């Protein structure tokens, strides 16, 4: 028998935040600062330290960390889409969010426009073009995940620079729901 997991009492050692990002893009700069700021604020944050080569599948350890985090913060940067690892992780994060009702995904658009993420244009288009050659099956899944994530309300650095404090899109543009009346 499995012990039912409860949204009320989270498992011990669970994280507040799961930080997902493209290491090569900004490990040493922005994400480092963000991570430090989280830790200083007492936010228990998971950051994938492991830069050594790894397989395509998300490890059990990572899977658990994603599942048990309250918030997944996804830092979208120019190179994000070129990493299959990042894309698989995003799929995992969104799946986890859609399974559990109280998990939040907070996208951060770092020097990239949310529409580039949503529609896979600009730097994302190039990356996808490369993936399409080798990973036709996965590409659809990734594209859907990016569209979903790009539609979530989050933070856009460019808005900040333009003097807006907050980029809020209230809802995903489409929910495949049925109206039940």
């Amino acid at each position, binding site marked *: *028998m*499995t*012990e*039912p*997991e*409860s*949204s*009320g009492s989270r498992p011990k050692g669970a994280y*507040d*935040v799961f930080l997902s990002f493209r290491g090569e893009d900004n490990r040493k*700069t*922005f994400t480092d*600062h*963000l991570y430090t*700021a*989280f830790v200083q*604020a007492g*936010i228990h944050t998971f950051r994938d330290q492991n830069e050594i080569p790894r397989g395509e599948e998300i490890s059990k350890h990572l899977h658990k960390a994603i599942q048990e985090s*309250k*918030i997944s*913060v996804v830092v979208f940067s120019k190179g994000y889409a070129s990493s299959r690892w990042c894309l698989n992780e995003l799929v995992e994060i969104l799946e986890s969010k859609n399974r559990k*009702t*109280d998990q*939040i995904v*907070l996208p*951060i658009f770092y020097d990239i426009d949310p529409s580039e993420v949503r529609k896979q244009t600009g730097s994302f288009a190039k990356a996808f073009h490369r993936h399409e050659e080798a990973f036709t099956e996965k590409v659809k899944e990734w594209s859907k995940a990016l569209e979903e994530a790009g539609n979530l*309300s989050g*933070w856009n*650095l460019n808005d*900040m*620079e333009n003097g807006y*404090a*907050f980029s*809020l899109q*209230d*809802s*995903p543009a489409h*929910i*495949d*729901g*049925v*109206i*039940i*009346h």
Partner: protein
Amino acid sequence: MDRHESKFIQEIVKDVLNKLDPKHINVATHLVGIDPLVLAISDFLSTATDEVCIVGIHGMPGIGKTSIAKVVFNQFCYRFEGSCFLSNINETSEQSNGLVLLQEQLLHDILKQNTVNISNVVRGMVLIKERICHKRVLVVVDDVAHQNQLNALMGERSWFGPGSRVIITTKDEHLLLKVDRTYRVEELKRDESLQLFSWHAFGDTKPAKDYVELSNDVVDYCGGLPLALEVLGSCLSGKNRARWKCLIDKLRKIPNREIQKKLRISFDSLDDHELQNTFLDIACFFIGRNKEYVAKVLEARCGYNPEDDLGTLSERSLIKVDAFGKISMHDLLRDMGRDIIHKESPGHPGKRSRIWQREDAWNVLNKHMVITKCLHKSKIMQVYLYFQTSCIHSLGSSIEFCWCFRERKW
């Protein structure tokens, strides 16, 4: 790191801290089959508009209205300036000063500070309107049973700031006349029922190997009602097969108290005695019958056209009338109704106000041998008459015949 970036990080940290602050409320661990409704409601509430949107969720007791409202609330509460989940409104309002307490909670949860004590409901209404009308809020008013409860907590849309969202849950569809959308919560499908039951009985999505058939029996009995599936699942959990069998047998004769207690609230809240009688008549005799037929028979009993009563019962999810006019009732509501009659006199069917089982009826009738002799014994006669309407063929009589007896006014 430039200035923008550092400000950016500060804002994100603030946002994350705010999101981590548990505004959300605790939801049952295993929710099954509610996703389509949650999606539909979320979708509607997400509409980008500065209007105040109000949705109503209705359905029979124990069907999962509150669970759905909680899930939607948890999804949305972080997007508003203030949020408040007022639970069990009907129960709380029955306490002395209950409505005032609810008004205070509403103000407190949204303004995040202790407000002045509210002296009475009318004062509370003024305060809510004045303090909240500029705030974009999410409010759930859970289990509303009377219009005055709605009036006290959300008298008008203008009480809440632009873009606010309100969710009302109620057993009474009639209270939802002024909302933008209503959603009826339906019974769970069979596979969903089995899954929910299994979570509570076995802590798994499927029944344990030796318990598949027994589990199916229980699921059949529950008729897709989450309350029943949860209660019975927990109550059977950890028991051996022999005890399962006993409990299931017992259930067929004596309904589970915990389930009945909750279902009975709907019966008790029926405003007048006639409405209650109409419900009991249907539970005992008229399930599966055509509405026009039932109306005709009931009119003879109560002396007025029961159309409105039938409408009220339907609004409160106590009965359902399908497109062809056939009346149906959830099995557990039927059992609740019949149990009320049974308890009138557990040992003596003849002393109950209604008899619906053939054996009971014959026993009672045989004791009196000649039917006309018992005309003066009001209760018994009524038993006979009701019996005839439901088993007309076996007695070879006609309804008209039955109801002309009724005219005698014992």
